[in-house]
């Protein structure tokens, strides 16, 4: 009998909601770089007698994300206490949700391994508070190895939405696609900045491996699942799962068994290690938080949120492909983020040919953005200016090579009027008339070649290329080669 080992993956994604204040108290959520324990109050420090009051905005953002993921939103939702002792949790319980979460039963589509869209079911989306941060060594490093940890509660109480998938993911690549799709979606929605490195989007993966009979497909053994933590990039999610699946398959193939455990991804070494946790003994004893009566999600809120949903990434991709005729990959690239999508559409509205505009954005715009560490919003070349440049190339008035130089000057902050001569091009590029005149001159000066072509002695098109070269030389690179050879072909055909 030959065996086949099939991985089963489910992901839990915590996204930090883009609110100004914490979920149950009015402390600022601005904890990055803040002095430790500055954004704290009796509520988020868990002082006796303090009462949590839910942040309206957190509910709105949760509803927005839930609707975008096609979830059903509960009209009554309840917060529970999840009880456990850990120093990052001053109350000794986390306020989370249990059996009555804000949103349930959604779905999202990702590009599957077979190239077709794959549906990943979303079990639920619930709201909860983040924990504080433990620092295990002081900044001076002298306390390394000491018997103490340092606690900062600035992050404690920051609102999170936890998005739980069904175990529908079948490969590390699909897991990565799923996380990317969720991240893109929450960014589109303005629900979270989705920054994995800074921890505003955190992924925990549940993975197990089924041992099946290759021929019958029968499941012979289903290994215990492990939970992987500490994956801080899309690449890390993929690598950690690849490692873990190989590890689990190896254990099962040798006839070993797996235990249910939490494992820590070590990105530097590229391995997962067991977290010797007390988790096994954890019994969270969830119960409804008596301080927070059930939250009512009104029909008005649902309606207004539904109406205010932006065009979602997958809808935008479809529209870009349909309306502008972009190939699938280009459409996905242009719809990748909202700022890029806006830039692209603004370019097109200003008269740029969509495919050429997309190519310019993919290559030149992104190259300069990466080199200079700029964001789309602060990019110095306005979409209307790029549209003008693209139109010059499209009209055969500027070669791509010269246009790239012009673009480099634009990216330095020059206007198009200054950038054209700076790149050695005439202001406004060459007119179609200019190009026609140059073609005339070249044809006149090369009568013998013209005769050869017209009498069919240029089967490989070498001679027409030679003439194109001469025109390009005359145009000092400002004309588009394809446009020039087009004109040449037309003119040579005329006198036949």
């Amino acid at each position, binding site marked *: 009998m030959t065996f086949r080992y099939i991985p089963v993956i489910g992901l839990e994604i915590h996204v930090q909601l883009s609110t100004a204040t914490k979920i149950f108290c009015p402390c600022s959520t601005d904890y990055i770089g803040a002095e*430790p324990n500055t954004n704290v109050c009796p509520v988020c420090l868990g*002082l006796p007698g303090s009462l949590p009051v*839910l942040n309206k905005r957190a509910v709105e953002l949760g509803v927005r994300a839930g609707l975008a993921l096609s979830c059903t939103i509960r009209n009554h939702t309840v917060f529970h206490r999840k009880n456990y002792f850990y120093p990052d949790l001053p109350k000794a319980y986390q306020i989370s949700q249990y059996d009555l979460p804000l949103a349930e039963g959604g779905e999202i589509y990702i590009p599957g391994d077979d190239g077709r869209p794959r549906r990943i079911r979303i079990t639920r989306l619930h709201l909860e508070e983040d924990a504080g941060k433990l620092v295990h060594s002081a900044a001076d490093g002298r306390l390394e190895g000491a018997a103490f940890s340092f606690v900062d*509660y600035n992050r404690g109480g920051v609102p999170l939405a936890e998005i739980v998938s069904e175990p529908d993911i079948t490969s590390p690549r699909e897991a990565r696609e799923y996380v990317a799709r969720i991240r893109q979606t929450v960014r589109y929605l303005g629900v979270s900045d989705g920054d994995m490195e800074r921890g505003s989007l955190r992924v925990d993966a549940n993975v197990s491996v089924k041992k099946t009979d290759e021929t019958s497909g029968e499941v012979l053994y289903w290994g215990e699942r492990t939970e992987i933590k500490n994956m801080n990039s899309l690449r890390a999610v993929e690598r950690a799962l690849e490692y873990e699946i190989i590890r689990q398959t190896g254990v099962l193939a040798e006839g070993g068994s797996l235990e249910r455990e939490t494992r820590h991804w070590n990105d530097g070494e590229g391995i997962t290690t067991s977290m*010797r946790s007390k988790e096994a003994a954890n019994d969270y004893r969830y119960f409804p938080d008596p301080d927070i009566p059930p939250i009512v999600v009104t029909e008005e809120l649902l309606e207004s949120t539904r109406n205010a949903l932006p065009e979602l990434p997958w809808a935008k991709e479809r529209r870009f492909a349909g309306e502008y005729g972009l190939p699938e990959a280009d459409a996905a690239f242009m719809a990748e983020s909202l700022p890029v999508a806006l830039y692209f559409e603004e370019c097109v509205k200003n008269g740029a040919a969509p495919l050429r505009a997309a190519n310019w954005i993919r290559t030149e715009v992104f190259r300069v953005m990466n080199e200079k560490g700029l964001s789309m919003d602060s990019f110095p070349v306005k979409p209307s200016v790029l549209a003008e440049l693209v139109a010059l190339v499209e009209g055969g008035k500027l070669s791509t090579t010269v246009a790239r130089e012009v673009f480099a000057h634009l990216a330095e902050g020059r206007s198009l009027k200054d950038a054209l001569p700076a790149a050695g091009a005439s202001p406004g590029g060459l007119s179609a008339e200019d190009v026609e005149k140059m073609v005339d001159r070249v044809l006149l000066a090369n009568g013998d070649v013209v005769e050869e072509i017209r009498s069919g002695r240029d089967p490989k098109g070498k001679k027409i290329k030679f003439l194109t070269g001469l025109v390009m030389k005359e145009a000092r690179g400002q004309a588009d080669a394809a446009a020039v050879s087009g004109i040449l072909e037309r003119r040579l055909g005329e006198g036949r």
Partner: protein
Amino acid sequence: MTISEKDVRHVADLARLRVEEKEIEPLVRHFEAILGHFATLSRAREEGRLNLDGVDPFLFSEREAPPLREDEPVRSAVRDDVLAAAPERKDSFFVVPRILEEE
């Protein structure tokens, strides 16, 4: 409803309570009395003596949905007092015994 000594120790463990050996047996009886009361109610319901049709679980004493808060930051002045009252601190950190889950 049978409660074992092990159950009592487990619950005490979860709540981080130190329970003396001699306290265990009385606690078993307390637990059984409390849970037994609910078992009586459950039995009454099963036997049709207690009709709870259309009655939702009573979880909250307040019937009104709570007001929600606008997302506007307010700075609390409590921090210095809390830090000053901490058993141990370093600069503006609270200091706790070292905890590392990772091996």
